[in-house]
């Protein structure tokens, strides 16, 4: 496998990795919010 092939770097569905990182961060925030609501509901 050539070096250029190994370094091929395009994320699926999105144009850049930054978008994916923002989505993962947004998912983390969403998880924290959902779990906070879960805690509050069953407190």
């Amino acid at each position: 496998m050539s070096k250029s092939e190994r370094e091929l770097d395009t994320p699926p569905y999105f144009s850049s990795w930054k978008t994916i990182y923002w989505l993962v961060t947004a998912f983390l925030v969403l998880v924290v919010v959902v779990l906070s609501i879960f805690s509050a509901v069953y407190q």
Partner: protein
Amino acid sequence: MNTLDLIVLFGTLLSIVAYGVYKTRGQNNIEGYLLGNNSLGWGTIGLSVMATQASAITFISTPGQGYESGMGFVQNYFGLPIALIIVSAVFIPIFYKLKVYTAYEFLESRFDLKTRMLGALLFLIQRGLAAGITIYAPAIILSSILDWDLTMTIFITGGLVIVYTVSGGTKAVSITQKQQMAVIMAGMFITFGVIVAYITDYVSFSSALDVAGKLDKLNTVDFDFNVEKRYTIWSGLTGGLFLALSYFGTDQSQVQRYLGGKNITESRMGLMFNAILKIPMQFFILLTGVMVYVFFIFYTPPVHFKDVSVQKLNGTPYEQQYQELSAKYENQLSERKNQVLQYVQEPNELNEAKMLAADEASKTVRQEVKDLLVKADPTIETKDSDYVFLTFILTYLPHGLIGLLIAVIFSAAMSSSSSEINSLSSTTTVDIYRRLISKGESKHDMLISKGLTLLWGILAISFAILAKNSENLIEAVNIVGSIFYGTILGIFLVAFFLKKVQGNAIFWAAMIAQITVIVFHFLTVYDVITLGYLWYNAIGCLLTILLSGLIQLVLPRKA
């Protein structure tokens, strides 16, 4: 366990081993053996990274943690997605650009040979000790609860791992981890369904959650700034970030998983897969433990789950007191069950108060039994939460499923220890043998690497057997890990972010930081200072970074 369970258990384990050996037969070069010929897709990488982190203790202790303390432990993983983004954005492109086999190779190209050797040696010491414990920790629990011989249990786990790890190297580790994760998740989902089915004979799932919440088991996110609290969102985001960053970015047992990718995209996707799934997975395992707690409201649990400890009371003056406490506990449980049912029928404040009082009373009796055990033997370990989930499995699951769940525990132990042994061998081969001794013949180097895998496997088993006599060894190895982890992370962070720092500065900074952490440890051991061992990580890391900058100011810069 009956014959059906044994067939399911050994059928599952042996077929995974056979699959790993078969699919990786005919490896004839070092690239294939250490990096799996860079053929792995993101799904395999993602599951492999997840399986490496999820040891048997995850599936034994975490439900116990949920049972005992509720869901708060999940906050420890809040820093993990951020750490994985940093590893994906910063660490992976550099590792790929330099085409390294191990993380420590990068240290030579960035600094010099001695810094690479330091990084590799710190990893070998720390991970070498941990590999024994990864096998020992589940073996001690499984052997005591299944009444198996401990040495035999260690040999089964270690022996099966050695077979496919020596045979197929990195690719065998990764593809067997896919099967192991499938077994693990299937087993856990089925068990959760069985628990809920048992509970719904008495109350609905929604009421079960309500009861668990009222008993303070579902407090998942805590925004309190009190640093003395063990699990808060703040400790999870900061401490969890440091821990995950050093683990995923600098620990070869993880680095090797994602370096086997077809390309950088597959490696990054594998890590993002983990960034998304890790918290939900831990949440689910903890919730399983909480549901076991609710289950034992309706089905009588033992007063103490670690039967081996209780048996020590036999024939002592405390036996009679234990029998009395046991009877008292059964009465309390009956009262608690009635109060819970009454609360579910009429969820008002009075019934809630009565339910909480009954739950507290049952906890008090459990504590009295623990105090009695300490009276009988002051050295005894009274923590029994690690035995809760296995007690449930062996007592209430149908035959066949028991075998599958024990296979889950063994699979988890095997998936973690295979990664560890594989990475120990890779680091010894690449950073020491190939760098200092080898003449560069690929096939010969692969044979050496296989021999080193076998050697590390034997060392892990030997260490696990030696651990038999020490109750506190697991904590001791965690301490050893914390002593070295901070320095390694500090070296890598300087490498990535402080471009002006050169080899001599980082080497001496790391040496001084490491010695300082060791001194702090001994000052703690001899009660001169009081310092939790998790702080060693932060101290080692920050000292390495600060000192490297200061020393670089003094030392002459090379061109």
